[in-house]
């Protein structure tokens, strides 16, 4: 109906207007990234500074790719983030199920324990983590400089958030479906697998996305545990280009940052509808 569309149009304009300050401030760093990444080397530090480059310096991306071994770093980021996510979600699902479906003595204590694991910032933990990793034999050395050490750490540190997220979803899924299955003679575990988990899928996907992003962007732990260049992730390589260098090649840094952020941003846009739906009761219907 035309009047409904007109009011939606009016509402859209108002909403965008109200959001515009936030949108501008959010998009500003991305604009800076993009503009600096495509500037030729001598225009980055030009004075007076200009917004637009005289030409698009595609070579920045290639040079940066070589310099930071971006391909390898990307592969490492993907492997570590994916495995951490799968593992974290994997062990969090049963825990969240227990918290949502059962009442048992350790419930409050477990919740408190998870909260405490969030309170210890990785900065505080790195020395101890390193020692721990150095003490555990693996392969022909120890867990330092291995993917496994990092994955185990990320899994442990992300568990709290994953359990919390999953638990809030699970609690909104009514018992009836499972109970119906039990009454029909289905064994409990099978009921959970066949009836419950499919319903919980959006929740698991959303939790997985969050865990993936946390792992992708993490810095302190991986910086401490990983040594050789061929094991470094994208986040570490980029910070290495800046921290403590005598000169910083900002065009390369921004080019790298752009490439590192793009996959995650795309992932977001694809999943934003999942995100909100998954968080609400609506997912169950």
């Amino acid at each position, binding site marked *: 109906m035309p009047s409904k569309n007109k009011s939606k149009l009016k509402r859209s304009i108002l909403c965008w207007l109200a959001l515009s300050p936030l949108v501008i401030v959010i998009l500003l760093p991305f604009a800076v990234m993009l503009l600096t990444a495509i500037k030729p080397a001598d225009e980055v530090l030009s*004075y007076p500074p200009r917004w637009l480059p005289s030409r698009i310096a595609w070579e920045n991306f290639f040079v940066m790719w070589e310099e930071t071994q971006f391909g390898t770093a990307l592969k490492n980021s993907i492997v570590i983030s994916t495995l951490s996510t799968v593992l974290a979600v994997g062990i969090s699902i049963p825990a969240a199920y227990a918290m949502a479906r059962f009442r048992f003595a350790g419930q409050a204590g477990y919740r408190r324990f998870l909260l405490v694991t969030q309170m210890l910032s990785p900065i505080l933990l790195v*020395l101890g983590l*390193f020692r721990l*990793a*150095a003490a555990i034999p693996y392969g022909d050395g*120890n867990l330092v400089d291995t993917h496994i050490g990092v994955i185990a750490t990320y899994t442990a540190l992300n568990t709290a958030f994953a359990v919390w997220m999953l638990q809030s979803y699970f609690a909104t899924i009514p018992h009836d479906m499972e109970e119906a299955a039990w009454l029909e003679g289905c064994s409990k575990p099978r009921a959970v697998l066949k009836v419950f988990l499919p319903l919980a899928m959006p929740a698991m996907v959303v939790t997985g996305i969050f865990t993936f992003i946390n792992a992708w962007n993490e810095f302190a732990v991986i910086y401490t545990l990983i*040594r050789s260049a061929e094991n470094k992730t994208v986040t570490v390589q980029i910070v290495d280009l800046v*921290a*403590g260098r005598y000169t910083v090649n900002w065009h390369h840094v921004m080019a790298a940052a752009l490439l590192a952020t793009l996959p995650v941003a795309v992932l977001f846009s694809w999943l934003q509808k999942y995100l909100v739906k998954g968080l609400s009761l609506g997912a169950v219907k």
Partner: protein
Amino acid sequence: MTRTHTKILLSLGTALLGMSTAHAETVRIAVAHYSDQTLPYFEKMAKEFSKANPGITIKVEEVNWDSLQQKLQTDIVGGTNPDLSIVATRWLLDLVKDDVVEPLDARMTPSFKDKFIGAFINSGKVASKTYGLPISASARGLYYNKAMLEKAGYSNGPKTWDEVIAASKKIKATGAYGFGIQGKEIETEIYWFYSLWTNGGEVVDANGKAVFDSAAGIKAANIYKSLIDQGLTQPGVTSNSREDVQNLFKQGRLGMVITAPFLAKQIQKEKPGLQYGVTAIPQGSNAATFATTDSLILFKNSKVKTAAWQFSEFLFSKAARVAFTSGEGFLPTTKEEAADPAFNDAVTQSFISYLPTAKFAPVIAGWEDLSKIVANAMQAVYLGKSKPEDALKAAALQANKMLKK
């Protein structure tokens, strides 16, 4: 083949195998990132050494200066430290106290010892024992923009602080910045020490007590403060790290900056058209410069000390040294390097000429804390939050408390 033949062959083969595996060693070395040249250089050296010494592999790990201390700390705690490492010479005291570095005197042949330029090898000694070999050395000098200073009437650069002030006034009138002062991040306190030392002041006295709040110190701080107050420096001093100030100089917007030889290499690469000169740090009552070394150390818990030492000797051979030092824009630390024509250029020779009046950072426990205390005090002065006399007196009090003097 008879059985005996086979047996002989087998045992020969095993013996040979044993011999080669007995020599298959890996030496791990951590190097600090100085420039894009650093890693390629060390990897090249590693390859050359391995070719000449089959059975020894060198594994090079490059670390940013910012995180070197943290990495070393975690490594040492975890027992996974490399065999060799480049460290800031000022860390030697703590490393020796923790008993993790190997004393090198016994391994150094007299001819090896003799290679080094006296001042530099001495900086790596703790309690008269050598623990660090000077792998990189640097001094400080005043870079000046030739065109700007010529117009200001000092075509060979200013020689005294008064001349710096006069020249900066003229440069300011043309719309550029006069004298660059670093107010942020690493070596902020050193930048002020240039003024302190050339006005007859000292950081600590012979007993290790902080004395930078002397009359000389207050004068030195006042010089910088008046430069800032009169607008003769770049604006926003405390948001400028050394890199920022150097960038302004490279842009041709800053007349003078005090820094190390590597700036010349950067200018050559990034702004070869810039006309600049190098002169000694401006004098107050005397000449002085800051000299610093980074040291190569051998860890006590290394399992391949002999191989690691062999590599160290290789790194200090003439060819290896010339390649490294000239590539990075440092100063030669061995006599045979210094004689090489690669260092005959005006800039390097100038820096070498300042060495007689060079001051090194005293190797005392708590130097890092002291540096931070002084840097904080100077930042307060630069921001106008504190008067030089008050800031320095308070800082000296704090420093002495920390130093327990």
